[in-house]
Structure formats: C-alpha cells, structure tokens
C-alpha cells in the first residue's frame, strides 16, 4: 500500500494492516496512531520497556512500504549526530589535492557543497524523496538542549544549514517518538505531539499476541503463559516487570522444551527469561515460587 497523502486511511483499514504485520492492537493504540497520521503530527509513545513502542514505527514502515529512519537517543546526542555534519576529513583531503591548482574562492564554494555533507537521520528524513517513518527512540535519554532543538525541527520540518540555506521537507515524515519516562519531557515538545500511553496488555490481548508471534504454542500452553505473566506483573512488586517480548521469549523456550502445559519445572528453567534482575528473581522465589505460581493460575 502506498500513501503519499494519508487521507485515504481509515481506522478499520489501519486495524487490518497492523494485524497483517502481526501487531495486535486495539482501538486504544490504533486511534491515536490514526490521528497522528491524519493530523500529520508526531506521535509520542510512552510506556514500560518492552510493551511494543518501537515496534509501532517498524509496523508503520511496513504498512506504508516505506523506509524507517531511526535516531537512537543517548546522553550527549547533539545536532552533529542527529542532523548533519561536514565531512571534515574529506574536505581536508580535497584541500590537499587541489590547493595548487584552484583559487581560494572556488575551493571554499566547492568544499561546502552537498558532496561534503554527512546526512544524519533527521536530515535524511526531511530530504527523503517519499514519506518515511522517522523513529526517534528513547527521547528521554537526551539532554534538554537537544530536546529544544528537536522541538524546532518537528515544528516546521525544515532546517537551516548556514552554508547551504534552508532545507524544507519534501514530505512530512511520520514521526514516532518513544519515551521510557526516565525524565519529564518539556511541555513544548509534548504539546506538539499526539500522545499514546501503552500499558501492559490484558490477558486476552497477550494470548492473541502469543498465538500470532509463536504459532507453534498450543492453546492451553498459551493461556497458561498469558495468565502466569499477567499474575506476576500485577501481584508482585518487581523492579522490572516482564514485558511482552519476554513473554514471547518464554513461549519460544517452551516450544523448544516441547511443553504441553506450563509446569513448575519449566518456570525454574526459564525464570531468567522473564526476570532480568537478581533481586526480582529472589523476590519471586520468596513470595511465590514456581509451584505457587502454577497453583495460582490453575485456580482461575
């Protein structure tokens, strides 16, 4: 499917397209995504790690058959890494090569042309010849100055490069920002985005996800897994609750063990796939343990 203008999409169509790519989503997710696309606004997705925030950008790229341009944020990320940088080394080599034969003015003109421009993700998304998906991942990891800069780029979808002038976006990219909530983002940035909070899925939704992503799992086992993970998330106070991706790891592992149903033995062998913190594992054994967990989910 190709949408240069996104006016033809509908909520139902988006539902179907998401499901075709294997992303199980209900209206809670589809409606904000749909609105972001139609209003041509960035979508800011928050939620615990592993609930499928980044995946939405990948799904969008797949649905619209377009490129995904990813900007991974980290402390100290600046414009040079996000927008553009002059290829200093290449410029130097050029100077060395032509300094004898060309006039100074020509050298300078030549050196600040697009050939020497290293495009970083933001500029690439703006210059792309078609509508792309721009994923700005973990925006909360950047510094405030960078956030302010980003806010400017996302407002106008244009950038100014002193030596080249202003570059305007040919197509406004579909921007997906993800946020793990490590720090509060500025009001300005939040105001420009459509907001989506993704919570851990319900038992029914997780069951659907397991069946779609790991079709080898039988129905009863899938149900056991969904119930167990749901119970652990809601009843125990873990530092890091098991995410959907960890549920899928567990499901894959159980397929390898040829499991028909979830048994205490399986939990003992796979607990490291669900819980990644020693204190969490200790807490699990202290408060519940594999037998306790199975007993709880069988009782339902």
């Amino acid at each position: 499917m190709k949408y240069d203008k996104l006016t033809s999409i509908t909520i139902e169509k988006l539902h179907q397209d998401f499901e075709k790519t294997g992303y199980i989503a209900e209206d809670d997710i589809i409606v904000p995504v749909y609105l972001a696309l139609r209003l041509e606004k960035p979508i800011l997705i928050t939620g615990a790690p592993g609930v499928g925030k980044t995946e939405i950008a990948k799904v969008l790229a797949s649905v619209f058959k377009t490129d995904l341009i990813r900007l991974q944020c980290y402390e100290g990320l600046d414009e040079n890494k996000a927008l553009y940088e002059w290829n200093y080394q290449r410029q130097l080599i050029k100077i060395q090569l032509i300094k004898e034969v060309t006039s100074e003015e020509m050298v300078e003109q030549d050196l600040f042309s697009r050939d020497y421009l290293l495009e970083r993700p933001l500029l690439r998304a703006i210059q792309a010849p078609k509508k792309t998906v721009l994923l700005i991942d973990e925006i909360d990891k950047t510094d405030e100055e960078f956030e302010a800069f980003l806010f400017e780029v996302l407002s106008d979808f244009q950038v100014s490069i002193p030596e080249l002038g202003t570059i305007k976006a040919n197509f406004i990219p579909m921007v997906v920002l993800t946020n793990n909530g490590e720090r509060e983002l500025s009001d300005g940035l939040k105001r420009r985005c459509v907001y989506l909070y993704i919570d851990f899925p319900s038992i029914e939704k997780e069951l659907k996800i397991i069946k779609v992503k790991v079709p080898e799992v039988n129905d009863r086992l899938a149900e056991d897994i969904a119930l167990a993970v749901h119970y652990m998330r809601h009843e125990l106070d873990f530092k890091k609750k098991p995410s959907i991706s960890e549920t899928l790891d567990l499901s894959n592992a159980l397929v390898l063990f040829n499991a028909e149903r979830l048994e205490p033995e399986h939990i003992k062998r796979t607990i490291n796939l669900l819980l990644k913190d020693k204190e969490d594992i200790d807490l699990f054994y202290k408060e519940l343990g594999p037998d306790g967990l199975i007993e709880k989910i069988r009782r339902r």
Partner: protein
Amino acid sequence: MQNYIENSIARFVHILRHLGIQVSILETITSLQALALVDILNRHHVKMALSATMVKNRDQQEIFDQAFESFFVAPEIKKEQEQVWEEKQAEGQRLLEEAETDLAYKGETLDLTEKEKLYYAQLPEEEKRKIREYLSASSVPDDRYDRFKPTLEYQVRGSLRYWKQRLGEAEDYHHLGDPEMDDPVIASIVDELSEDSSILYEDMKRIGERDLPKVTNMLKRLSRKLATMISRRYRMSKKAVKLDLRRSIKANVRYGGAIFKLHYKQKRIQKPKVLLICDVSGSMSRYAAFVIQFIYGLSAVMKNIESFIFAEELEHVSAFFDTRQPFEDTMVKLIGKSRIWGKGTNMGNALYALREQYPLLLTSNTVVIIVSDTKTLEIDFAEDELIKLKRSVKDILWLNTLPQDEWKNVPSVQKFKRYSQMYECYTLAHLERIIRTQFLR
C-alpha cells in the same frame, strides 16, 4: 450540532484545567480537528481522540479518564450532578449563616474570613458551644469594651487555628461564590475529582491511613525517577566543549601534522554522593515516616546514598535500607532499634557528630539533603556546625516542613537559610516539585 460539540469541549477543557491538566488553545483546536476525523457517535473513539490530543503523561491520563467519565454522561446523570452540587452549595450557605449568627459580638458579626466561618460551623458541637459561651461572656454591655472586638476576633481565629491543627481540614466549600464556578456541572465534577487528587497537596502529617497505599506508590515512582537521574553519567556534548589541542596534535602526527581527526575536551561529571539527614524528633516524626519511605525507594535503586536520622543525637541508618525487605518491616526495625525516634532536637549535636565521626563521607562531591523544620535547641551552635558542613560539601539542600509564610517569624529558619538552599516541603506536591526542579533538570 457543531456549536454544541465546541461548547462541550470548551467546558471539558475548563474542567481539565481546574484539575491541573494544562490544555492550551492550540491543543483544544487540535482536539476538535481530531474529533472531526473519528466517528463522533463512538464514545470510545471520542475519548481516545480527546485523550491523544490533551493528555501528556500517565498521571494526567488517570485524571482525564475520570473527568471524561463524569462529564460525558447521559442528561439525567448530569441533572443529578447539578442537583447534588446545588444541595451542597445550599448546605454551605446554611453553615455560613449559622456561623455568622454564632460568631457575633454585641449583635455584630465578627470580622472573620469565609473559610474560618465555615471551619467553625463544622466543629464538634462541644467546641462550638465553648466558643459561643466565651463570646457571650465577653459581651458586656459597656461602651468601654467597643475596642474589644478586634481582640476577640484575634482570639477566635487563634482557637480555630488550634482546632485545625488538631482535627485537620474540614469539608471544602471553597467554591462558594467563586464566579469561575458558576456552571454547576463543571463545579460538581471539579469538586468531586479534586478530592481524589488532593492527597498530593495535603500536609503530609495529616495524610490518613486510608491514603497510605496511594502515597506509597507515589513515593516509589518519585524515588525511582530521582534515582535514574542521579545515576546517569552526563557527558557534555561536542558543541559545548573545547578542542583538546594536545590530544588532537598527538593523534594527527601520523598524518604529517595536518589536524585530521579532532579531539575534544570531555568533562565527565561525577555522580554526586547523596547524604540524607532526617529529623525524627517529636514534631517531625510524621514527616519523617514519609521521607524515610522516600529514602527506602531511593536506596533500592541506587547505591551511593548515606542516610542518617537525628533528634538529640545522630544515628546512621543506611544499613537498614541495604537489605531488600518490605518497607513496613524496615520501619518497624528502624523505629524499634532507634534510641532517638520522637525525642527533642539538637541539630548542632547531630551535625557535630556527623563531622567528627563520618569525615570521609563529606567530600566536595557530596550533596547533603536535610529534612527538618529547623526547630532545635542551641540555634547558634547548630548554625556554626552548618557553616562548617557547608565548607566541606558540594551543596546543602534543606527541605523545610514549615509553610513558607511562617518562615519570617522563625529565627532558626532565617539563620539556616543563609547556608543552604531551603525549600518548603510539607506536601507530596512540594517533594515532587523539588525533585523535578533540583534533580530532574
């Protein structure tokens, strides 16, 4: 129809603003554009469209959901809301009139604020009777006592303040006569929902047992946020630092001296060590329970935090937080073993002991957080010790549980304020704001 929708959205935005969700005009317009793109008869889609364009974080989401459910209701429920609100208003008016009749001196109503009068009206009958008797005993039919009315007002005010401290806040009728609240539906929803979110603004020492689980969750979230920020190691970005010529030249010798690869001076900011000193004397012990819960949350996620409690003396309590045990167990152990919990305060002694016994903890990279209402014996001694402490650490943040409007009358606040960054901190909202502005920058 169109006007009806716009009108409803405007009123809904009004409610959200009253509940602390800042919705700008631009966002309101965007929300209307969003509504035009969804099926307006699908309640869930309408809710999602408004939420996506008005909400900005998870806390707001909860408030938004409640406000939406209360506002977009069937007409008969709306009617009920109006009725409840009007009854409440009438009750408030009745209480006010009753108070005005009771609180009079020689037939003239005392000059008290509406809030004070309403507070009086909700006091237990026994206490009201005492105030009434006192007033009637003071009403001597003698002209000489005309000037006595301001004195009486002063005394009644003092008495009401005393009861407020002992019994806590009464039911809130503060929307009485508020022109912004002339819409009964808006007023009733704001009134109903703000009670839920008021725990953030409640004086910590008055938070009841019922709300403790809510507070525990809030504190846990706050402390985790803070811990993440402190444990992040900041490195300045390239544009903010200077070229490191020495390293650049060295690295480029191989290119015949042409500066080919640039190296920048990078300044690594070390993680600060946090040293927390919490006052657990009699007047502070209720606050201390919350602050310690906060430290508990912090210690669970970060290692470089040292905790002390003090009253007459100082006690090192970091060890209590090292093991991962439920908070209640930690508290029971802490209070059980502490020799000083709930006693009098001598801050000078505590700071002296800190300097003498734990000098290695006081470095130029240590941020000291003091939680105290500043009330202490030997103020001058405490001041001297504070000056000495200030010299040996990076910074002192003082979370003061006294309301800021009382600071000017408390000499110890005036003294200690000079050597620390002092913040008013008697509600969870204060604690949250201090963390956001001082740590999450």
